[in-house]
């Protein structure tokens, strides 16, 4: 692309750490303005947590719809370099002039892969499927999911059977190389976008809520995968204990969030997410009784319209109250939820067939060899020249705000590239 303003860019690029919705947005927006971008993603495919959602709120539309467009933008744009299974190992220099060392873990499958799937068919070993939050298994030779980009299989060598080379024999295209080694690459970049995203709070730490002890207590991200047609239960939300359809479901809001003992901030998205989850349940089981226990329902902006729309469902009950404990009836595996109902001041005990914990957002900023300020919760704070955080690495926020944020970070990074081009 011929570009006046950046013609003297001298090949300076942006380094984007993280290939989720924030990272790939930042890379794309900068690249379409004429700046080269390198995305390094530690997992084997792009899309991060968002692509594992069943639907986005408030439109209840599939994330792959937007990712399809974004992946096409990447495919059509030679200014974007995508490196998967890649991590930043070291970075030196300063704004406008960094040298980044990126460690590439072996995929054991080369570019010759045609995505025909013969390797997975032949593979005798299994591994927990991280895309489904380990609710199911894949073969050791696997494609992360059907819409995965890059569309290329990967082999989890830790899961392989000893001395097995079934995949090598099965691949007609010589695309498998079990001897691949770790590689390191150096890049000269003008700026860094930190888009390492979030992880769900470990709900087993909230011991009074029973996650990890009682099978029918699940978290919001697990429910998301259960609801997805390409998920472990092919879109059926079923009780893990017996595979039965749940008749009554309780959502426990602020499971970890707004809690001085866990996450002292609000995770921003869980209210809208649980409202969305109630629509999943009601689409499958129109008569299921859904109860949301909340402190405040936080649906800012237009999300209020979504709340108003969902709340009209007669089978959804909103109770302002904090859940104190979740216990299990050992015979039925039903759950007994005790909550303090704030509006009446009374203690309420109710039985549910399934409980969903609205677990919060934890920033993923640990272990990155990058000098960046962080707040008391680990969220990155902007202020370091040349390094710009975006998305949930910076604050808990929903997809739309993340994209907005990432688009802005792209401009900050672009400014560095322009300046370095002038001075370089």
């Amino acid at each position, binding site marked *: *692309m011929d*570009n006046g*303003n950046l013609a003297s860019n001298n090949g300076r690029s942006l380094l984007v750490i993280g290939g989720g919705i924030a990272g790939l947005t930042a890379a794309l*927006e900068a690249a*379409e*303005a004429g700046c080269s971008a390198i995305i390094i993603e530690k997992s084997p495919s792009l899309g991060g947590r968002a692509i594992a959602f069943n639907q*986005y*709120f*408030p*439109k209840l*539309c*599939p*994330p*792959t*719809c*937007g990712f*399809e*467009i974004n992946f*096409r*933008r990447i495919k*059509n*744009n030679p200014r974007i370099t995508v490196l998967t299974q890649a991590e930043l190992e070291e970075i030196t220099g300063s704004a406008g002039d960094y040298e980044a060392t990126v460690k590439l873990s072996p995929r054991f499958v080369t570019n*010759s892969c*045609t*995505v*025909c799937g013969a390797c997975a068919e032949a593979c005798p070993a299994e591994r927990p499927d991280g895309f489904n939050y380990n609710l199911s298994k894949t073969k050791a030779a696997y494609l992360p999911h059907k*819409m995965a980009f890059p*569309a290329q299989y990967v082999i989890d060598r830790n899961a392989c059977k000893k001395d097995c080379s079934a995949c090598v024999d099965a691949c*007609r295209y010589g695309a498998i190389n079990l001897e691949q080694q770790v590689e390191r690459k150096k890049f000269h970049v003008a700026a860094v976008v930190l888009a390492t995203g979030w992880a769900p709070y470990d709900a087993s730490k909230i011991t009074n809520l029973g996650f990890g002890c009682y099978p029918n207590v699940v978290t919001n991200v697990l429910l998301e995968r259960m609801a997805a*047609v*390409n998920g472990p239960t092919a879109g059926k939300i079923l009780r893990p204990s017996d595979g039965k359809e749940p008749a009554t479901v309780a959502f426990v809001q602020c499971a970890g969030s707004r809690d001085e003992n866990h996450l002292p*901030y*609000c995770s921003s998205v869980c209210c809208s997410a649980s409202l969305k989850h109630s629509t999943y349940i009601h689409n499958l089981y129109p008569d299921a009784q859904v109860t949301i226990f909340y402190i405040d329902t936080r649906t*800012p*902006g*237009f*999300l*209020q*319209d979504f709340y*108003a729309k969902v709340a009209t469902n007669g089978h959804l009950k909103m109770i302002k109250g904090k859940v104190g404990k979740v216990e299990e009836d050992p015979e039925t595996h039903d759950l007994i939820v005790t909550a303090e109902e*704030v*509006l009446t*001041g009374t203690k309420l005990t109710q039985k549910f067939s399934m409980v969903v914990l609205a677990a919060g957002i934890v920033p993923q900023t640990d272990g990155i060899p990058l000098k960046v300020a962080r*707040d*008391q*919760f680990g*969220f990155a704070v902007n202020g370091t020249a040349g390094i710009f955080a975006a998305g949930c690495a910076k*604050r*808990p*926020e929903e*997809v739309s705000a993340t*994209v*907005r*944020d990432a*688009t*802005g970070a792209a*401009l900050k990074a*672009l*400014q560095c590239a*322009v300046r370095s081009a002038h001075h370089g």
Partner: protein
Amino acid sequence: MGRKLGVYTCSGCSIGDAIDVERLVSIAEEEYRPAICKAHPFLCGEDGLSVIKTDLAEGRVDSVVIAGCSPRVKTDAFTFDPQIVTERVNLREHVAWSHEPRTEDTQMLAEDYLRMGIVKAQKMEPLEPVSDGISKTILVVGGGVTGISAALEAADADYDVVLVEKEPQLGGSLATVKKYFPTHPPYTDLEETGLPEKIAKVTSHPKVKVYTSTRIVKTEGQPGMFDVTLQNGGDPFVHRAGAIVMATGWKPYDASKLPHLGYGCSPNVVTNDQFEALIGSGPLVRPSDGKPAESVLFIQCAGSRDNNHLPYCSSVCCMATLKQSDFIHQTSPETKVYIVYRDIITPGQYERYFAKVQNHPATFLMKGDVAAVRAQDGRQIQVDVKGTLLGEDITVPADIVVLATGLVPNAADNDAIRDLRDAQAKVQRNESETQRTEAEKIVNRLQPHEGTAILNLNYRQGPDLPILRDGFPNSNFVCFPYETLRTGIYAAGAVRAPMDSAQAEEDALGAAMKAIQSVEMATAGKAVHPRAGDLSYPSFLLQRCTQCKRCTVECPFGSIDEDEKGTPKFNPYRCRRCGVCMGACPERIISFKNYSVDIIASMIKAIEVPDEEEEKLRVLLFMCENDAYPALDVAGMNHVHYDASVRVIPLRCLGSTNIVWIADALSRGIDGVMLMGCKYGEDYQCHFAKGSEIAHRRLENVKETLQRLQLEPERVEVSQVSIDEFEKVPEMINTFMDRIRELGPNPYKGF
């Protein structure tokens, strides 16, 4: 045409097991006589690619048909020079993986797809970037915090900026704010707004030209070449700009509409906006008599989250109230502050500030609804609150009641202004009595919109950004918050969606980025999102135009204007290349070099329709290439089988469907036509906003025509499909085929 076509068929990935590739190649050779026709067992491999590249390099071919996997994969491998026309034929996902191997029907399907691909490649023309005279100046409309930020950030990336503010000074709503609520760790301390520094910086920035007391008289042209006429007292003058950031901000909701919350009943009932002026300078006193205020009661959601007023949450009022409460307690720690709320909305790190303020011993949070606000002369105001946490209704006395009124966007209603102008023109033309009376009614109804235009675009489809929701020119997409219906014009800040100043500053960055991107893409002759990078654009064979105006009305992006006679005037840089105009045109005079009515019609013609005796049905399936087509690809990856009588043609958008294709297909004896597009309606998923909806509408008209032709309207079906409905799509195909079987073959077969 002299095109030297190379047809390369891959037999890998079980294509060779499912179909007779040799026969396929010989059909291509016999029927189309391409320059080169080869099969390869692993076309995307090094050896396969070198075969193609050698043929290209040695000039044996100049256009390429790749028959193998879906065009959605192996794009790197099969992307050649942009001058090389390349067409991918999906023999893998749509044939080998989704149909019974080695059957006559599967073979016929592969053969038809190859024919269709070859014909398409023969007709497509190579693309060259067209771009000339693009201005890279960014115009920012609105000099509040959003506009100032957008201007500074774009200028810091080395772009010239023109910043226009209608008031005599910069600063907007933030200028009235004394302190800002915490946005930095530890998120508990009030902050300076930083506005004076920003104003100083933007007014002295060498790349920014600031105009205050200035209005936009008109904006002519298109992205890359907007000619913006400005006026600030004297003679109007013109600036050329490449893209526009609209940062016109917000105004407080009109509190006079809230008499039920006591507004107007006493000078001591004020809005949060007015209250900001009362705090921070000495002890807090009652506006009515200057007596010290011992208690203040805030009513949250005053207008917001209320279907009779503002259905949305204004996003800023909770933090604003907490800040004002904090402010009061800094000077008068004893003053009682009551906050009547439904939900305290302090997302993310803002929660820390809520925790701090609510811990103040004189802050009382009361969940409940205000039933009445009663004022008595010289006495405290009585506020009746019902549904409180204590379960009882209580009355709280307060010296001052603050209504936390929400925000309303400073946007113009594009469609209303357009309709008003159209109606005014009709009145003027005075063509008939009834028409005039009808138009006059519209004029009267829409009169309040007179003079409200902000950007004053000279677009046929209206002078401003279309409103999407509750008065905001927002994006309809979760994943594309800057998607706009007017290419090169991006809303930012509180005019786009309810947000606070900190969010608005970030939003300004994003919108400035999109504006920069739009001028850079225009400079390269490329389309912006969602067909980013596309070099094609439609051309109009105006000699045959009948001035029906369908293209000018239906273009979702307002790309096409009209002259007085109604002849379309196309603006290529506004265009997003969806082809909706091409589908709209009854004269079929709108074409892209690589996408046209003729190209698709030729593909339809290339399908071999078996005779009636063969008892083989043929159904055409037009699919949106963005969502429905990938869904069918995934079905193929899952090896889900469906009826092999169907022939898929991907479209840029279902809205580009020209109904002549359906007529062509049915008159050729094709037994049915399916169309699959994106969801439409309020929460539409169509990437081109209205394309799918328009296609549905057009199809309704087709059905009437069918009935006249004695053909069952059930032979044509249009449906909405999401990209994740990969399980449903094959079922839909099979169900439709069952229906066609029931109806029997097309009676026009063989004619």
